[in-house]
């Protein structure tokens, strides 16, 4: 079962990429297999059975998958959303010529995401974590011929990879202390290592879950196809950050929890404001995603990871159906700008109803899913020791949720209706199931808490009243008042994504590039200095050789002359013959010397070639040497 959760989508992906035929059918088969396996895991886990497999990877560090109640729940969530989004995609991507690549990459993503949620050790988690980033890069960049798409994909990968350094180092700290890579063992870490690791993991989570100040990539990621936004950038990939913190919650000490809660609270407000100022429906939903994950981090920081998990599940169903609805409107109007989409909802009342139900679910109207989870978060914030910080931020985040959803609904409903649209059965089905889940999931939360062994106390009347009041007032504000008036002076910075000092580009990218060019400039100097050094050495040697050669030449000339004199002095009768012989010798020596000079004064490389041949000869002699010893 456990293996099939991954193998189903993986084998389907490989089949699609190698066969390049019937990608839709294969994709749906793979997703269905994965779903059935995940359902089986969930059923088994609800009986309290934990299964695991371990495969050899590094010596002493095998890779492990574990289906515990928590991981099996997440696995089922991923499989469900993936299956619905893929059904929707068969309609959405119908006319795309590169469907095989699309489905192949989507299924690779699903495999990696399942590995992430089921991981039982840090290596598997890290590997899956980076793989989902890679799949996200490929999917955001799917239409890489279009303007701005490649930049968005590159940015998404680099943002998250920078934050991933936190996961790498955090995992190294934990493995080093525990001596094993099993997450269940490292969760018992305490003291300073736990605090350091907790803060490092928070950095990683901030990157993946698009928390301030690393939120910008998520809005740009909307350059990908809408099913990608629905699956990756709302329900799964972005969830990885929150999942990481939920999994490691048992070891997080107070200091780390406070940091997590505050980061989450600030994100909930800041990205909520950004969402309200957005002029594009998909980007609005993306900013809202970051904001909702901020609320989950508030819950984790308040010491209620189960509340965060419930909101994660509710949000997954809600946000994916909102994106799928947005995709239908995008299909109709060929764009996602709010101006373009004005009135698009009334032209498709069915889809709009689904969109509105889930929007209201996100705002937290009873009895829909987020009503329960949001109340749990507010209750946790209220009960936490950091309540003075967390509660206002959580409430402000909830008001903003109401406001931007109210605005989106208003825009889609008011405006020109336009011609009626053709039905889109696959898209409607995929979306419909998710809407039903978004509306009804809340009733299963009690059972889920029981299964996880962490039942949340039912709050009294004050928390639901507070939650409902902020949600509804936000909704009213967003529906009736234009964001320009609502935001006032905050509008311009919100539209700008609250980029401080040029945002990440100014803070990281430009410094990195200037270090790179400084290295390049230094490199040129270094090279010049070294060439100078070597040339000095080479020329020095050549000069020495030249002088030695000159001396040798003079010496041989002198020998010749001396022998000549000797010959004359001895007064041989047959002088001519001897003279001729000696003069001939001298002449040959002179000629040889000149030849040697020519060889040496030429290009240095020729000398080197000769040196090389000389070396080779010496080596040959060395090899032959044994025969003479």
């Amino acid at each position, binding site marked *: 079962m456990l293996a099939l959760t991954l193998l189903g989508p993986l084998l389907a992906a490989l089949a699609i990429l190698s066969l390049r035929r019937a990608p839709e059918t294969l994709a749906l088969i793979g997703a269905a297999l994965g779903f059935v396996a995940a359902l089986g895991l969930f059923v088994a886990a609800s009986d309290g059975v934990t299964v695991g497999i371990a495969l*050899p990877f590094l010596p002493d560090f095998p890779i492990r998958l574990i289906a515990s109640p928590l991981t099996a729940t997440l696995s089922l969530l991923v499989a469900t959303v993936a299956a619905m989004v893929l059904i929707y995609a068969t309609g959405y991507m119908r006319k795309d010529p590169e469907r095989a690549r699309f489905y192949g990459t989507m299924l690779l993503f699903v495999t990696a995401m399942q590995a992430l949620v089921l991981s039982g050790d840090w290596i598997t988690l890290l590997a899956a974590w980076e793989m989902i980033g890679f799949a996200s890069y490929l999917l955001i960049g799917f239409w890489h011929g279009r303007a701005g798409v490649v930049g968005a994909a590159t940015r998404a990968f680099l943002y998250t990879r920078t934050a991933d350094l936190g996961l790498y180092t955090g995992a190294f700290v934990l493995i080093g202390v525990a001596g094993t890579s099993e997450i269940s063992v490292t969760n018992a870490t305490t003291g300073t290592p736990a605090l350091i690791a907790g803060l490092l993991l928070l950095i990683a989570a901030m990157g993946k879950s698009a928390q301030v100040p690393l939120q910008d990539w998520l809005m740009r990621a909307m350059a990908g196809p809408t099913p990608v936004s629905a699956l990756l950038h709302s329900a799964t990939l972005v969830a990885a950050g929150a999942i990481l913190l939920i999994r490691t919650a048992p070891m997080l000490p107070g200091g780390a929890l406070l940091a997590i809660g505050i980061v989450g609270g600030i994100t909930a407000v800041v990205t909520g404001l950004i969402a309200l100022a957005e002029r594009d429906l998909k980007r609005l939903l993306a900013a809202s995603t970051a904001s909702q994950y901020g609320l989950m981090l508030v819950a984790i920081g308040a010491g209620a990871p189960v509340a965060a998990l419930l909101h994660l599940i509710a949000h997954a169903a809600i946000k994916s159906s909102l994106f799928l609805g947005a995709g239908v409107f995008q299909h109709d109007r060929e764009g996602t700008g709010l101006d373009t989409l004005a009135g698009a909802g009334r032209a498709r009342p069915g889809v709009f109803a689904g969109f509105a139900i889930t929007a209201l679910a996100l705002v937290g109207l009873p009895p829909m899913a987020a009503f329960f989870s949001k109340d749990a978060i507010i209750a946790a914030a209220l009960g936490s020791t950091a309540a003075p910080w967390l509660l206002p931020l959580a409430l402000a985040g909830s008001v903003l949720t109401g406001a931007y959803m109210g605005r989106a609904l208003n825009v889609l409903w008011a405006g020109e209706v336009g011609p009626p649209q053709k039905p889109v059965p696959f898209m409607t089905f995929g979306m419909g199931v998710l809407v039903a889940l978004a509306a009804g999931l809340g009733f299963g939360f009690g059972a889920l808490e029981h299964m996880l062994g962490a039942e949340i106390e039912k709050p009294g009347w004050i928390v639901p009243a507070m939650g409902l009041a902020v949600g509804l007032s936000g909704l009213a504000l967003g529906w009736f008042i234009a964001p320009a008036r609502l935001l006032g002076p905050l509008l311009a910075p919100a539209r700008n994504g609250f980029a401080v000092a040029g945002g990440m580009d100014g803070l990281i990218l430009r410094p*990195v590039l200037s270090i790179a060019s400084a290295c390049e400039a230094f490199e040129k100097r270094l090279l010049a200095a070294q060439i100078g050094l070597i040339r000095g050495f*080479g020329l020095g040697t050549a000069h020495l050789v030249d002088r030695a050669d000159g001396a040798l030449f003079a010496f041989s000339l002198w020998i010749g002359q001396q022998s000549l004199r000797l010959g004359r002095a001895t007064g041989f009768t047959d002088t001519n013959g001897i003279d001729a012989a000696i003069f001939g010798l001298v002449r040959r020596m002179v000629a040889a010397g000149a030849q040697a000079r020519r060889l040496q004064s030429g290009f240095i490389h020729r000398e080197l070639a000769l040196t090389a041949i000389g070396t080779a000869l010496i080596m040959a002699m060395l090899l032959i040497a044994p025969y003479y010893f």
Partner: protein
Amino acid sequence: MPLLTLATFLPILGGLALMALPNRSDRVAHGMSIVATGLVFLITLVIWSRGIVPSGFAQIEEIAWIPAIGASFRLGLDGLSLSLVLLTSLLFFLSAIYSARISERAPSYVVLMLMLETAALGTFMALDGLLFYVFFEVSLVGMYFMIAGWGYEERQRAALMFFLYTFLGSLPLLLAIIGLYLSSGTFDMRAWIDAPPLTGLAAMLALIAMLFTFAVKIPAFPVHTWLPAAHVQAPTAGSVILAGVMLKFGTYGLVRFALQMTPEAFAQAGQVVLAFGVVSALYGAFAALAQTDLKRMIAYTSVNHMGYVVIGVAVAALSVDPQIRVIALDGATLQMISHGLVTGALFFLIGMLQDRAHTREVCDFGGLLGSVPWLGWAFILSAFASLGLPGLAHFPAEFQVFLATLNTAPWAIVAILAIVVTAGLYLRAIAAVFLGERNEKWALMPDLDRREMLVIVPLLILTILVGVAPSWLLNIIHTTMASLSF
């Protein structure tokens, strides 16, 4: 059967046979090259199947050479050398296939390649100090002629620089070897390893000499400058051999000589070596980011990747925890193999791109993925492997190196910043060359042909295999590293 000797000398015998043949057409020459390197590859597979021993060297072949000075012809293997030997024979075989298209003085080219293979295999398997040095130097000569004879525009200058640099660089090693010989009376490397003959100042001086030689070869900052120059001018197969095999002489020597023969001195100098490794890794990454020539860029990433190997070895020398020590050495050794596979693939791919477009400037391309999908996806896969994506070859190696580093010398973990910089530079290159708007100039560029597929696909498969299930390779390495006592 003395398979080690056979594998070492089969290539050069093939080369000599080629020189003796009356018909030396290009076809015959390349045929000889492919057959010889292919046979050597098969022999190394048999050597692999014969296995290694848990500690010390296996499959030893020994013949008296110069008994008067205690030098013998000694070959043998442990996990470190066996994995490098397999990499070497594979890369030479693939290079021979890739080079089958070269028509410029093909017989000389083939003889040089075969001579290089003999030198490379000999370097990794030699168990005699003198023999090691001979093979180490012969490889220099071979590569010099390779670059000077078959390189690109400024090949003479680059070849000269390569030769001078590495030749001068290797002289200190000779001094160290003589020092080891004088204090032990033998050239047997096993004796040097079992009972390191030098102590105190002498050991430190020998270590400094060796470190200088190997730093040039690896290459580590600041003596890395010859590498980009040589790579840019070298012919494709030359680049593959240079990066894939010859740089490993440096890291192999770092472990085999510096770490194993002067262990105490290495532990004392560990922080300094570590610092050079960290600077190399970071500097290589940043310098690569500044490049616009693809080949130069990959050359600098080699400085970065080999920097991780230096870090791993230095951490092993510094660590007092035996488990961490083995993790560091496993990682460093695996990194050598991964770098050979991945950078080999990248240089082949850039060579294929250059064969088609006659340029390597990043900005001359654009949107190539549409016209050459195989080449493009192969490059994307290799690039992601090189930037350390899990599931591909560099991840297990770098994971182990960094894990050991953080738990031994926490400051050195700053080197991990380089993985973000390499990610940035590869994504930028992919975006500029293969994605984005299509440059109509290359609309008709042909995709990989059969010969090119034959070269690139095995490397990609191995890249994935090492990344997904490294144990088949890591087990050999781990066996040896777990038994090292230094």
